[in-house]
């Protein structure tokens, strides 16, 4: 649902200005296996595309798990953390992208957490060590999640981009997975592989 919202937004933004292309990124891990649920972001070089906070984003706690585990939100998006378990949770993040705590609570907290900086926030629960979730805060509207190893970013205007891929298997110490990409009027297929030193073709 979130993806669809973003798609709609992108369509609205670029509209009739130019004929947009679709960028199909085939993502595989370092061993070459296709990765599912990777987040592929196209970040324009030297410019910023307008992006609006998303509405209604939430990460629930259910059966002592975060749901969803990986969320992609645009900068400024407020996220609700409804506790659907019968136990209390203490959700926190010490990531630079967003440091916050929602101390022991049950039910739905009153205020959402606004993710106002781009980056990756790692979320945990101080009560339940096994609970883990990521919030990828993006500044670009051109992003997609991979399924079957392919992430298709739609309506990409021609220009210079950086492909930025994130996947939950990446270690925190791994540098950002970036790869330059020039997009013309036609669709682009790009094959990428995650690596410890960065993204490679």
């Amino acid at each position, binding site marked *: 649902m979130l993806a669809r919202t973003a798609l709609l937004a992108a369509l609205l933004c670029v509209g009739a200005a130019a004929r947009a292309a679709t960028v199909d990124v085939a993502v595989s891990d370092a061993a070459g296996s296709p990765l599912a649920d990777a987040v592929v972001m196209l970040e324009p070089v030297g410019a910023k595309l307008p992006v609006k906070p998303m509405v209604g984003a939430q990460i629930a706690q259910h059966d002592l798990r975060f749901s969803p585990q990986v969320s992609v939100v645009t900068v400024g998006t407020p996220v609700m953390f409804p506790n659907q378990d019968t136990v209390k949770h203490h959700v*926190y993040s*010490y*990531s630079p992208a967003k*440091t916050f*705590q929602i101390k022991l609570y049950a039910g739905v907290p009153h205020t959402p957490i606004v993710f106002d900086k781009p980056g990756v926030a*790692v*979320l*945990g*629960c*101080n009560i339940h*060590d096994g*609970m*883990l979730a990521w919030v990828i805060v993006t500044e670009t509207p051109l992003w997609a999640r991979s399924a079957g190893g392919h992430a298709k970013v739609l309506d990409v205007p021609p220009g210079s981009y950086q492909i930025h891929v994130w996947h939950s298997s990446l*270690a*925190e*110490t*791994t540098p950002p997975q970036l790869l330059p990409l020039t997009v013309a009027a036609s669709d682009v297929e790009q094959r990428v592989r995650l690596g410890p030193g960065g993204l490679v073709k």
Partner: protein
Amino acid sequence: MSVNDRPWRKSLGARIIVVFLALLLAVQLVSFASLRISLSRHAHNEMPAKLERGEQLLRTLLERRVVAVADVTKVTASDFGFSTVLFADDHDEDHERTITSNLDSLRTRVEATEVAFLGLDGAVQHRSSGGDAAAVASVAAQLRPQLPANGFASEIMRVGGLPYQVVAVPVMKPRVVGWILIAFPLGEKLQHDVKSLSGTDLTLLTRASAREPWAVAMTTLAGANANDLAENGWGAPTAPDAMASVPSQGDELGVHALPLGADRRLDGGVLALISLSVSDAVRLPADLQFQLILITLTAIGVFAAGSVVTARRVTTPLRGLADAAERLGAGDYATPMRGLTRGDELGALSQSFERMRISVAENQAQILRLAYWDTLTALPNRARFREAVGDALRDAADARLANGAEFGVAVVMLDLNRFKHVNDVLGYSVGDQVLVGIAERLSRALARDGDVVARLSGDEFAILLRRTDAAQAEALALRIERSLEQPLVLGEHKVDMGAGIGIACWPLHADDADSLLVRAEMAMYAAKRQTNGPVTYDPAIDATSVQTLTLISELRQAVDRNELRLYLQPKLALEDRRVVGAEALVRWQHPTRGLVPPMQFIPFAEQTGFIRTLTMWVFEEAARCWQILADEGLQLRLSVNLSTRDLLDLDLPQKFAALLARHEVPAKAFCLEITESAIMDDPQRALATLDALSAMGFKLSIDDFGTGYSSLAYLKRLPVDELKIDQSFVRNMQSDRDDEMIVRSTIDLAHNLGIMVVAEGVETAEAWNLLRELKCDQAQGYHMGKPMPVTEFSAWCASWGMRRAAGDADGALLLH
């Protein structure tokens, strides 16, 4: 070095002791050496394992420290409060102090020198108070590449030249947000633990890069040893079951090298050396050394005692044997050996000595028998007899001194006549039997014990009579002579043996044994000459003998000094009184004694062999005379006497031939006169010589016929031309009918054999006439003419010829 410089070499016992102890010491030295070698080998075998244990201990200690530190640090890392402070939004000074104090308290808990918080990029975000910021930065910088994405790290690294142990514990919120870094230099506690728990020394070396030398950071060794280790270089780690050997300060260090750096390479960082001293490992513990010395001293004592006993057991019997050998050498063969019952080599040696002693004693006895006893007759020999005589004289002298007993000692000596003849004719076997038979008879003739019969030489025997006198001795001599008259019957042979017997008595004739024997021998020779029974020694015999010896030596010079004279005694034909020949006789004109009678030197010239010289002289002189007489018109046959020795000289015919040639005289001008006994001494050789002489043309004559034992039948075989009847028969024939019969029958028989007869000793006209009646051919005697020099002989012949021509019919008136 001479033997004298090493007194122990003189003694077998000392040698045994020295050799025993030397061997013991050698064995001890060898065992000490082998103990050392095996200790060294053991040490070298054991050391790698010990070093390995030291290395394991070091690893374990380091890991335990890491675990302990990590355990404590994890508590902090997972503490929510710590994270809350760390990631608080307000970054003021109080906040920073809070974080620092938090890290300080952790530092105290883990006993580290530095604690810091590293961000995800590995950079130092916070650190404990005080400490060394540069060191922490260095640690962080070195650690950064090794920080695991999601975990824990520990490392040993060189920081400011010192070895540091570093532990990084991740802070998980919920994924890693950074690391708590704990760092501290490796220190004395680690060394102490390694040394005390494994016994190995620990040295830590550091260097910044492979280009730099290792530097000693810390060590439990002496500084010099540690520096030697550092200078070794260390190119590679040591294999687990091996060790590096590093010489150091006269010692040897066995070393295990263990790189502690991050990449386990040796191009920098930290190197741990676990070492052991080889000499410490090889060194004997003090108590073991003491025990070994004690054992050695005890063994030396035991060996010394044992070798002394052994040496005694060997040398004592050896000394006994040496003493026994000395006794044998000194002639004591009676003392038996000791130690014959021993079962060992010395016992065998003693038994050998004993056998040798017995054997030598038997040999000695045998030698004595051979030296003192005659093997043929089993009688004492001359040496034994001489000793017996000496003993008898001493006993008699002692008896005289003791009780005045006037006993004498007599020696009777006898020499067999014609024994050589028996040997030659009948063989040596019969000769030996004769000697044995004579020995038996002599032994039987002795009635008394203590008297001794001995065989002195070939056919010479002697008898010793103790406690006797001259009369008893003479009686014994007569008894012996009578016993010898019985012929010896030896198988088919019957042998008549006569003997010359001489007697000498002590103290009458001699003072000592030797002169007693000499005088008995003189008496014996006198008896042989006289052929008239036993002769008792008389000083007169001795005097003559001495005089004779002098004469013999003078006689040898007489030829050269021209003292000999040739005399001729005429031989006349009885039938017509014509001078038909002459007998050549030698006379000695001694410068001081005057004319020496022939009987005083001829017999001794015969004994000494000088007679041959005399014979040749006479023959040559006779040849010369013959020539002189021939010149005067006298054709006479000259008779020359030959002795036994002349006959035995096989060269005699040649010598005569040479003389005849020189003087140009025919052989038939000579008649050679030979006595019966001269022929009988060696009939075969004599016959050969006579045949040769006869063949040359010499006439041969038997002199003194009738005194010997020869028979006419035997004479028949000889080439004889003439017989000379002995003058003893001629002198007595007128008064003794027997003698007349002998003369008569001799003449008849000779004539029957074709042999001419000459009568000697014709001293009266009656004898002349009687001989003429008996048809005797020639006569010789004082009645006609005595022996005279040649010149007188010529004159005599002339006057005789005139008287005969005057027709002196009566032969009786011829001379006187």
